[in-house]
């Protein structure tokens, strides 16, 4: 990460412009592992300033993976805090950054449906979002989740 990912200007710009980054060296600050309830590094966390955690990730990421992961974290930050229109905006922008990532692009497509649905209350928004996921990735785990809707 230090050698390849953080020095990437796309990564450093994204971090510096959108969040305040904090770094703990766990070989020096051994308590950090307990504070965040982890036993593996590298570990990344996206928080708001009220100590709400919105996403965590483990293991090294190349610059493209990191950028996609970061955009998903930002989308979930707004979705999980109830700012659905903002989350739709972020998730749709994220598509540009996840589209070549077979791990994150399906998740990105998945969340657009719930984000639109929670904002509008319109079931068609949810189904339309899931439809794009199902057409693009028919066998993905996120697709299977999207098919487990139950209607009362």
């Amino acid at each position: 990460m230090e050698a390849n990912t953080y020095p990437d200007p796309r990564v450093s710009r994204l971090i510096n412009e959108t969040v305040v980054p904090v770094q703990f060296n766990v070989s020096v600050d051994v308590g950090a592992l307990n504070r965040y309830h982890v036993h593996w590094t590298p570990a990344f966390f996206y928080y708001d300033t009220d100590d709400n955690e919105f996403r965590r990730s483990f293991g090294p990421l190349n610059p493209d993976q990191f950028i996609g992961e970061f955009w998903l974290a930002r989308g979930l930050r707004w979705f999980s805090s109830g700012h659905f229109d903002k989350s739709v905006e972020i998730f749709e922008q994220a598509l540009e950054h996840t589209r070549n990532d077979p791990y994150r692009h399906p998740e990105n497509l998945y969340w657009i449906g719930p984000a639109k649905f929670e904002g509008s209350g319109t079931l068609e928004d949810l189904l339309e979002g899931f439809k794009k996921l199902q057409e693009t990735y028919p066998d993905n785990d996120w697709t299977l989740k999207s098919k487990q809707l139950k209607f009362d």
Partner: protein
Amino acid sequence: MTRVTTLYEGGREMIQAVTWRSSLEEARIEAREQGKDLFIDLYNPG
């Protein structure tokens, strides 16, 4: 403490490296002032 590192190429400032903070409390205050969120990285250089 804020560590700011600027990379240079050809004598011209090109890239602002990630400006990591080491104090969570100070970072939280700064984030509130700027309306930003926090990104936390735990790493082991060994």
